[in-house]
Structure formats: C-alpha cells, structure tokens
C-alpha cells in the first residue's frame, strides 16, 4: 500500500517537474559540467545525497559535489569564498530569517531566480523566506520547522498520565509528574533551547497574541508574552525542568535526558525527532502541542530555506537546473521524507509517524515565531542579539521578566 503510494507520488512528481508555462529550461541533455553545493550541517548530508542522485537521473551529465562547512563561521566563510571568486555554485542560507541572505543579495551575490525557476509548488508563506523586494533569491523547502512537546508514552501509561487538553491541565500535569519524583521536562540552559520551549508555551498561553505576531499587531513585549515568560520562570523555580537544570549544558544533554528515560517530556524543535529516534530506536514516544485554555492548538514555526544560486557561478545552466529541480515536488518530497521532517505541504506525506503526529497536533494552525519578530521588526537591528545575550538571565534571577522585556522593547519598532 505504502509502496504504491510512493510510486504514485514519484510518477506524478516526475510529470510535474517537467517544464511548465513561462519557465524556460534547457533540455536535460544539454546541461553538463560540475557544480558545487555548500551546506552548513552534517544532518542534511544524507538527504543531499538522495537529492543529487534523483537530480542525476534527470541530468546525468552534471556532476554535483557538495561540501559541508559545519561550523559557526559558515556565513563568514561563504562570504569570503564568494568575494574571492571561489564560491560554490549553490549554497544554503537561512533566507530572510537572518540578515545574511539580504546582505549577499545587496552585494549582488545571489542570482535572481524569478522566471528561471518554477516555484508553483512552493507555498506563499514559504516563499517569504526567498523574496527580497521584487526578486526571488532561494528555493525554500516545504518542511515545517516547528516546536513540540515530545513525551515518553510508556512512562505516561505506567503512571496513568494523559495528554493534556487545556493549558490548566498541562500545568497540573507538570505538578503531578514532579510529585511522582520525576523531572517533567528536559530542557537545556541555553537561549535557543529555552526559546523553543517558550514559544509553544506562549502559543498555548495566548493563541490570540501568537496569531497577532503574524502582522506584528502583537508587540514582542506584549503583556501576554510577559505573563507567559513569567509562567515559564515560575515553572523553572518549581523544578519542572529539573532541580539543577542550569547544569544541562546543551541540546545534546537535553535530548539524552529524554531518550534515557530520565524525564517525562522534552520540549524542543520538531527536527530533533530524527535525532531522538536515532539515539534510542527503542523509545516509545509521541508528541503533542501545548493546548490553550479553550482546548485549541497551534504550531509555532516556518518552512526552512534551501539553496541560493551564486550569481558568479561559472556553470549557471547546471546551477539553475539544480535550483529548478529543488523546487519540484519530487525534490521537495525527497527532502521532507529523508529528513523525517514535518511536512509543510498537504501534497507531501511525512515519512515518520512522529512527524505526522506533530503535524496533526497543531490542528492546522501555524503561528509566527516570537524570535522571528525580533529579527524582522527591530528598529536597531539589535533585538535578537539582546535577546540571545540576556534571555537566560531571566531564569538566573539577574533580570526580572519586565526588565528583560523592556530591554527588548527598546530595540523594537
């Protein structure tokens, strides 16, 4: 059954990926040469290999090489490489979510893909990652990078705990688990990990506020955000993240505490699902979204950005062909499924049960990320930096929630 479905998807994808409408594409056999792709993280390597193999079925004469520059200075290296004229033909950036792609675009380093790539498969909200002014500068991936509550199903069953349906129930559940002598939530004491917990808590605490982030009618330092953050601080003090959670030094330690069964839940990015399954294939776990008081749910997150084409590429035909391939349903399906990601498109079925479960837990609603608002609407451009530097101070008691939010407000429009 499943195989039949995949075959169907693949055949329809093949049909769809043929040139349509105004897009001008060279015949596959005319394109040849070598192109180089840069990625920023090893976790994409397997998907990239699959992607290249599928591309080569269509374009057998193009040799695709990829390099993974997995370090914090990825962008600086990319800029240096492009400026010195030895940049890759295609490269990953975080699109409009960070300032890096806009920087590259303003230095004419990215090829405008409008009319060169057929974007019909990509949703409008995903295209926001690629559009700057009137141009389109990258091919987004239709994954949904969201945050979720992973929970240990066996542990829940043994103790008779159930998945909460209201925010109040969730809070009571935390207290119950804590009383049972188990750490309710695994969380690392760093700004990004804490953010991935804060955002879904905020969405459950006030769906109206979270919906308003989309068009910035909800201010970043709004009353609801302050209250939700205060709630999270209270939970930290109540020991819901573990009695000594300041000593959980990174995301790896956070995941390990969950996979080894030391904590009942783990609030983290949906992309961690693959790592959790790899880490402990025997773990029976599920996912839910933190419900609001009236029982509705939603997911915080966006699509992911993909590759841009170097404007100075020496093999532009092949580079464009690859970008065009990435925009096809076939490539998007390969990407979403090989990553085990949550699908951002109704036409792509997620490959893992946990990804489907995360997807369904949101009942179709998505909210914009609170942190994304910081980078998009900061008048000084510094809001995100201030957040990164000071967020944890709220939990350490060196800043109060109000002091922190006032700092943020000072950097916002």
């Amino acid at each position: 059954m499943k195989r039949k479905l995949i075959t169907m998807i693949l055949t329809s994808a093949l049909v769809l990926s043929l040139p349509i409408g105004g897009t001008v594409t060279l015949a596959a056999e005319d394109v040849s040469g070598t192109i180089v792709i840069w990625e920023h993280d090893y976790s994409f390597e397997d998907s990239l290999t699959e992607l290249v193999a599928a591309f080569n079925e269509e374009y057998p004469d193009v040799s695709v090489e990829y390099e993974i520059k997995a370090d914090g200075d990825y962008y600086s290296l990319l800029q240096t490489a492009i400026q010195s004229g030895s940049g890759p033909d295609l490269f990953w950036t975080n699109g409009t979510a960070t300032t890096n792609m806009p920087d590259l675009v303003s230095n004419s380093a990215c090829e405008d893909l409008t009319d060169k790539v057929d974007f019909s498969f990509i949703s409008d909200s995903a295209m926001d990652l690629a559009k700057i002014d009137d141009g389109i500068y990258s091919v987004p991936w239709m994954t949904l990078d969201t945050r979720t509550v992973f929970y240990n199903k066996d542990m829940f069953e043994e103790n008779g705990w159930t998945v909460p349906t209201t925010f109040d129930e969730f809070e009571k559940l935390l207290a119950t688990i804590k009383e049972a002598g188990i750490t309710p939530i695994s969380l690392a004491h760093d700004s990004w990990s804490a953010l991935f917990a804060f955002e879904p808590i905020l969405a459950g605490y006030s769906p109206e506020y979270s919906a308003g982030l989309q068009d910035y009618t909800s201010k970043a330092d709004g009353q609801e955000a302050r209250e939700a953050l205060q709630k999270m601080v209270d939970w930290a003090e109540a020991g819901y993240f573990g009695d000594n959670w300041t000593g959980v030094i990174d995301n790896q330690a956070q995941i390990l505490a969950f996979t080894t069964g030391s904590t009942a839940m783990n609030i983290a990015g949906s992309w961690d699902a693959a790592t959790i399954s790899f880490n402990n294939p025997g773990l029976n776990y599920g996912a839910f979204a933190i419900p609001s008081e009236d029982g509705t749910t939603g997911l915080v997150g966006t699509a992911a950005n993909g590759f841009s084409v170097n404007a100075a590429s020496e093999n532009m035909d092949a580079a464009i062909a690859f970008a065009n391939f990435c925009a096809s349903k076939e490539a998007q399906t390969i990407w979403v499924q090989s990553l085990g990601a949550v699908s951002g498109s109704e036409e792509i079925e997620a490959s893992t049960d946990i990804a489907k479960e995360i997807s369904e837990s949101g009942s179709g609603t998505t909210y914009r990320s609170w942190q994304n608002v910081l980078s998009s609407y900061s008048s000084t451009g510094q809001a995100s930096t201030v957040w990164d530097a000071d967020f944890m101070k709220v939990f350490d008691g060196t800043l109060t929630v109000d002091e922190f939010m006032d700092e943020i407000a000072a950097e916002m429009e």
Partner: protein
Amino acid sequence: MSKNKSADFTTGNGEVLSTSGKLIRWICSIVLIIYSFITIFVLAITVMDSLKTQTDLVTNFVGLPKAVSFSSYAAVLGGGEFLRYFKNSVILTVCGTAGCIILSAMAAYGIARYKFKGKSFLTGYFMIGMMVPVQVSILPLFIILRNLGLLNKLLGLILVYISGISMSCLIFQKFFRTIPTALEESARLDGCHDLTVFFKIILPITKPVIFTMALITAIGEWNDFYMPMVLLGNKNVTTLTLAIYRYIGQFTRYMSESMAAVVITLIPIIAIYFAFSSQIVEGLTGGAVKG
C-alpha cells in the same frame, strides 16, 4: 655505602635513596596511578560503547555491552574511501610535522646561537602565531591560498602546517641555549659548515625535545578537522579526521559510531607514541655529549 649494597635502592638515575625517600616515591606513584584511573575509565567506556548497538548504548552508557557488535566500525570505515582518507591524513601529518619541526629547529638555532640585529623582534614575531585562535586568521588564509592556487590541495594545507612553528620554535630556542657550545666549536674547527654542524651534531643530541615536539605537533595536525574542513573542500583531499567528523559532529545521533571514530583516530596516535617514547627515554644518556 658500597655499590652492591645500594643496588636495591638505586633508581634508574643511579642515586641512593633513604627509606623515607622510597616511601614518598611510592605514595606519589600510587596517587598518580589512582589519578590515571580516570583516563582508563574514559577510554574503557569509549571502547565498550563503540561495541554496543544504539539501543543497548542509550540504556547502558557504562556497563559491558550486551552483545559485541562491530556495526559502528563497519559504518565508519565502510562508507566511502577510507583508505584514501587515511592516506591523505598520513601525508598531511607526516609532511606537516617533519617540515614544521625542521624549520622551527633551524630558526630557533639561528636565534639562539647568533647575534644579529632585530633578534628580539624576531623572537616576538615568531610568537604571534600562538596568540590568536585559528578562527581569527582562517578567512584571510582562505584568500591567500586561493590566490596561490593552493585551495583544495594537500600541498596548501601542508605549507600552512609547516608554517605553524610558533610553539616549537619557542621551546627549541631556550633549549638550544642550554647546550654547551664546546661541541660545535670543535666540529667547526674541522671545517664543517654551520648547517652541517646543526644537522650532524645539534639535532642528534636534542632528540628528546625534538621527538616530544614532533609528537605534540603531529597530534594537533592529525586531530585537526577545522582547517581541512575549510581549506580542503574536495572529496579527493578529505582527511580521515574530517571524514569521521561527520559522526562526531552529530554525536547524539551517532553515538556508537562516534565512539568507534574516536577509537580509530586514537590507534595511530598511540602507536606513534609507543614508537617515540622509547626514543625519548634513551635521550641523552647514550648521546653525544657524554662520549
């Protein structure tokens, strides 16, 4: 005290020990042996974990493997072109270390044994390399290598490694100054060139320091994944360490593979250490100065 009697209390250096001195030594020794258990513990767990299956590993970090499995080694060594990566790593490390040690020993000797203008400046100049982390200079280095046409070529990184003379040059300098000049003078009277004197007389008697610095340099280069990642993009020139960094970089995902990767990189280093350590022990005792 007769020689025979002292034999029981004689250490390798030939001095005589009182009973209390002997006791203190034993205590120090026992303390250090206990201290070394930390390392044994860490390595034993690393090796054991590398032999576990993933499910076994997560529920059981410390215990013995439920069943010995070499699948993680197969994954690390089987994927891709292990032999080529290994060869690249060996070429880089051997050439880089040999070049770096010879060049820095020469430079150190020049600074230590000759008087010339700008000597103290040069000493300081050669130290700059230690003062900034590699992330600082990697971007200009990328451009320099690119302009020399050495990007993505083993030779390029070998030259960079050879140029990393700061540390060994500093160590060698002070060291050369402790060697009596009498030896070199007599050789020079026999009409030897300064370079010949250096290679024939100075280098052999400084074996312990040379080997120690070579070992430290080699370990640094062998374990380095950052520079190969940035400067050697092409698959043909990938190093072993970079190839297995793929696992170590995603530690939570590939725990037992990472452990296997660590064991694989450790083995050559430990082999080299044993090869070198006997040289270090011999040292001067059989060297030129005594004879």
